[in-house]
């Protein structure tokens, strides 16, 4: 009798393993061969590539729609918890080989449950997106109720600032589901395969008559270079998965934690900072070269590299400490702030602020762009968003005036009036409300116009410029304590390491940030 029971038990167990095999394998999928043509990995292969070997801890809902008449393994989405570099993460991954990865009745419920689990357990959440959108023949049971599709976006928006959320866009993310990456903290898109749009080209042609390709409508390159929805463009799926890992290195598990320190590494060898900064303020300075001289070798991880390039944003290690860098790149558009660059900075600063990453500002800019074009593009409103984000940030902030720092540009780059922990300057710095040319023209316009002799007029202008220039140097503001210190280039790295360490101590008590929650606002 005992043997009989055992036998039955084995059979029951066996059934579970057989079902699991059928659900998890790729060999029985009708669309599997198509994946290879598109240079795509099977959903479970992507997960295996990303996570520590054999580290899947739980997988819920694997038997979703097991009893359905149709073959819908796991209802086209894999939701599980596994480890990356020893850290627990939640993963929600579309399975393109089942109904083109569409969102059916249980797909949506599974996604919502994994979001809720990640929020409660305070672990990062990674979305692997590759889906044709809503499953239209199931629309009645997926669209209207409190726990239908819209709840996914509700959760994504509400979780923002609590736990890091990463979107890896491997394929389409159309219509409503386009909002999923749009609400995440870090969005990687795979070139040529990713596409994110509200209406497909076919739909656009039907609605308005516009004829447009998928790539023009919502391709990875478009979103990285023009719309700013993409934070990184990846050539391959492996590159996208590696980027998620790299991003997580700069993120804590949740908003209550800080990123662990790493071993300090010396910067890459190169020219001294004093040699990198051109004396002539008109001549562009390559800020990337300055960053390389400051940060731990090979640690710089650029954020939104292809968008609004006059503003550099990226994570890095400085003496082993994870920091965010916001820097003007005068090699592109003179480093001038545009509506796009201000929003890019605001997005990045809010991301750092949410997850306790200190911020270094490297300032070299002639100010905000002027002209009717940028006013129409709402440079004031969008610039104010950057200002407001800087002013409300509670993480340690240090601004370094590298060279020129004019007008409102200086202020929003966390200048002294934005109450950073420190505002220091290189000896080459020249902070002022505006440059001598513009200032003299503004102050003495009528007088200049009234001098008829051109030589006399020029002489007068030069005299006034020299007078104005007297206070545009580093020593006048240093002498008045407007800035905290003047630091030579060869001492800057050390100074920053010491300051970030100091300003990170007792931070929660000092700043009352224990109660603070920041939603990451994308720009």
């Amino acid at each position, binding site marked *: 009798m005992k043997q009989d029971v055992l036998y039955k038990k084995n059979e029951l167990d066996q059934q579970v393993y057989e079902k699991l095999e059928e659900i998890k394998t790729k060999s029985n999928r009708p669309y599997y061969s198509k994946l290879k043509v598109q240079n795509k990995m099977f959903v479970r292969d992507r997960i295996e590539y990303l996570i520590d070997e054999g580290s899947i801890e739980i997988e819920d809902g694997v038997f979703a729609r097991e009893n359905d008449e149709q073959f819908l393994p796991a209802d086209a989405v894999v939701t599980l918890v596994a480890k990356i570099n020893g850290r627990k993460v939640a993963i929600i991954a579309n399975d393109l080989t089942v109904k083109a990865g569409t969102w059916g009745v249980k797909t949506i419920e599974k996604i919502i449950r994994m979001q809720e689990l990640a929020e409660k357990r305070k672990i990062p959440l990674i979305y692997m997106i590759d889906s044709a959108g809503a499953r239209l023949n199931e629309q009645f049971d997926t669209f209207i109720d409190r726990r239908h599709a819209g709840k996914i976006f509700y959760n994504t928006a509400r979780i923002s600032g609590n736990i890091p959320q990463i979107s890896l866009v491997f394929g389409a993310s159309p219509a409503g589901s386009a909002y999923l990456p749009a609400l995440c903290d870090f969005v990687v898109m795979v070139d040529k395969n990713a596409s994110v749009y509200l209406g497909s080209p076919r739909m656009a042609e039907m609605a308005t008559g516009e004829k447009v390709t998928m790539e023009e409508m919502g391709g990875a390159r478009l979103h990285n270079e023009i719309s700013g929805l993409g934070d990184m463009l990846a050539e391959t799926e492996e590159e996208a998965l590696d980027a998620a890992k790299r991003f997580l290195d700069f993120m804590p598990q949740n908003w209550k934690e800080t990123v662990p320190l790493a071993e300090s590494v010396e910067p890459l060898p190169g020219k001294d900072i004093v040699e990198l900064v051109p004396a002539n303020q*008109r001549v562009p300075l390559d800020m990337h070269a300055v960053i390389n001289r400051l940060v731990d070798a090979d640690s710089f991880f650029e954020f939104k590299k292809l968008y609004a390039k006059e503003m550099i944003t990226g994570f890095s290690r400085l003496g082993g400490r994870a920091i965010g860098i916001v820097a003007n790149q*005068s090699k592109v558009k003179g480093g*001038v702030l545009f509506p796009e660059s201000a929003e890019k900075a605001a997005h990045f600063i809010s991301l750092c602020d949410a997850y306790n990453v200190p911020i270094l500002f490297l300032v070299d800019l002639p100010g905000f*762009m002027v002209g009717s074009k940028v006013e129409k593009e709402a440079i004031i409103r969008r610039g104010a968003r950057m200002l407001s984000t800087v002013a409300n940030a509670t993480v340690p902030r240090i601004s370094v005036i590298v060279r020129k720092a004019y007008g409102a540009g200086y202020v929003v780059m966390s200048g002294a009036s934005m109450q950073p922990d420190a505002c220091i300057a290189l000896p080459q710095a020249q902070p002022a409300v505006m440059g001598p040319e513009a200032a003299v023209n503004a102050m003495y316009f009528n007088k200049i116009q009234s001098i008829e002799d051109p030589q006399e007029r020029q002489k007068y202008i030069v005299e006034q410029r020299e007078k104005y220039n007297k206070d545009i140097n580093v020593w006048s503001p240093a002498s008045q304590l407007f800035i905290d210190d003047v630091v030579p280039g060869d001492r800057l790295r050390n100074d920053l390491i010491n300051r970030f360490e100091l300003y990170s101590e007792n931070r929660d008590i000092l700043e009352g940030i224990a109660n603070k929650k920041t939603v990451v606002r994308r720009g």
Partner: protein
Amino acid sequence: MDVTSNMTGNVWKIVVSNGDKVTAGQEVAILESMKMEIPISAEVYGEVEEIIVNEGDFVNDGDVILKLK
């Protein structure tokens, strides 16, 4: 293939001539805007076919500076 201005400003220098071969990323002109020198580069390899603007001209964002073939 057109090389266009990426911001509003004045054309300060044209650094190539008709018939010159340029590589992707090579500087072809320098604008002056916001008291800064703004280098303008070719995006692709090509031969300068026609220079559209003169030094000192005002250009808007998107205006054609020169044509490549």
